[in-house]
């Protein structure tokens, strides 16, 4: 349970931040609207990742799930950040 919780809390936080950044880059919104959207959607996204982590067989699977999602999302982050510079 504790290992799962670490994935749910830490992994969930990182995944939600990364997804929020992608949304910020992809959606045609003003800066302030993007920030507000991040605040509104970030936490439900984090909790949704937690549900997914706790549905895992064990902590390792939970971390693998988070890592997989984080890898894809961070790759997109990198592409978007590099394309902006």
């Amino acid at each position, binding site marked *: 349970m504790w290992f799962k919780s670490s994935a749910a809390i830490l992994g969930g936080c990182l995944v939600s931040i990364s997804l929020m950044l992608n949304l910020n880059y992809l959606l045609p919104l003003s800066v302030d609207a993007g920030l*507000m959207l*991040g*605040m509104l959607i970030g*936490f439900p996204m984090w*909790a949704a990742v937690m*549900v997914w982590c706790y*549905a895992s067989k064990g902590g390792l699977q939970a971390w693998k799930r988070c890592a997989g999602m984080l890898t894809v999302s961070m790759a997109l982050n990198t592409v978007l950040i590099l394309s902006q510079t």
Partner: protein
Amino acid sequence: MDKEFVKRNTEAHGWLGLIISGLLFVVFFTGSISFFRDEIQLWATSAYVQTQSTQSESNLALSEVMELAIAGRAFNAKEHLVIYPPTEHEPYYTAYVDIIGNEGSDDYVGLIMDPVTGDVVGNPDSFFLADFLYILHYSLNLPFGMYIIGFVALFFLFSIFSGVLIHASDMVKGFFRYRADGRKRSQLLDLHNIIGVVSLPYTLMLAITGLIFNLVIIYQIAFGVILYEGDIDALLVDAGFVTVEPQWQDQPWSNPPIDELYEQQIQRWDSIPSQIRVYNYGDESAVLEFYGPMGNEFAGQYGIAYNLSDRSVVFAQTPDNPNAVTNGLDVVATLHFGAFGGLDLRFVYFLLGLAVCGLIVTGNLLWVGQREKKLSSAKIAFVARFTLASTAGVAVATSFAFLAERLLPLGEYDRAGSLSSVFVLSLLLASGYIWLGSNRRKILIRLLQIVCAVCSILVLLDTTFFSDGIVAIFKQGHMAPLGVDIGLFLSALLSGYISYKLQSRLSVSVPEKYSSHDSVPVKV
């Protein structure tokens, strides 16, 4: 849905729900009471603070109040002077005057001022109950408490999501199901599910908005580091947060248009500003800042600051100058505090909040019932005692905090700190009683009887010793203190009734030989 998915989430829902239950109960219990924070504040002050009529025509002008607030005090003009004008719930001016103190200290004095004469009739910091309960709600009055509560809210949001998934297949069919004749566990489960489903929009909204208040710093840091390359100030500017830092000119001001600008705000926004702040008071560089509600708007809150020398606008958070973050946060706050309706809406919020307290208790009892045969009796007893201490114990402590607010004398001592100590001490004593006692149902009955007695004493005290102040304020058109007394009376009736019912069931259902045994099944 995959059975394993539901099963594992049910397990996590139960364990995490139990772990956060104590703090979550405190959050919802004190939060529910805090919907009437202004009323409680007026109830607290009405016994000790008497002011003149609050007809706005006879009130002193804002500039006069400012002068009276700083008169004879070591006012630090390079800091701020903050004034809260009289409102429906606080029929007096409240002023916070920064005074010259030790290097780096943030010394100030708080003043309650008669709106007609300008006399200082009290110190707002002496009446701490309303703020104490509110601070307990969002930060437990602890360092880093805000983040602790933030994570409690996060786990609560997870519990809502997992609860919906667990109950999804049965949500429509089982919506009205309550098996009154069923087993104890079925009754508890039905009650837990019904409260959960009925309060779902409310709990979802409170969890998300609460998270925004308490844990937004995580996203702020992440966005600041990645999107703004560490320039947090630029992030705050984009988010609409401004800081006013006028440079001291060392030249006295001449005819600052304080009252004129104040009247202008009243006319423009159709409401009295809720807060007025002056920077560099008395200097040519002085800035006057107003915050207040925009009348008839769902979540309208404006902020505007003027250079008093030439009336130029320093910053304006107004509909002409919209910002999605500040407007969005206004909506978030309005939803969270139930500020978009009247007293009736706050009653609905209050009742739903108490229902969530019931949701927490039934959740813990379900957890205990499910594991009674699997876990040792010591572990089960621990959970049951923990549940009692964090629910009935908190209720007892809160009632004593009300009593302390009424009875602690005013004077040159830390009255607010004493009130906090009364709360903590009574919570510790109640917890000690719970931990040392053997029959938990009897303990619950005693604790409910204590709540009943304390609430009754409060009503008696108000009717006998403090009625003059309450009647005087009632005659000025303020019903709040009377309303709080009615609330206390109803609390006394309710806790007395529940303890009476539990007592009668105890005498019927528990055989004498079990009455002092610790392993009597928990049916709190």
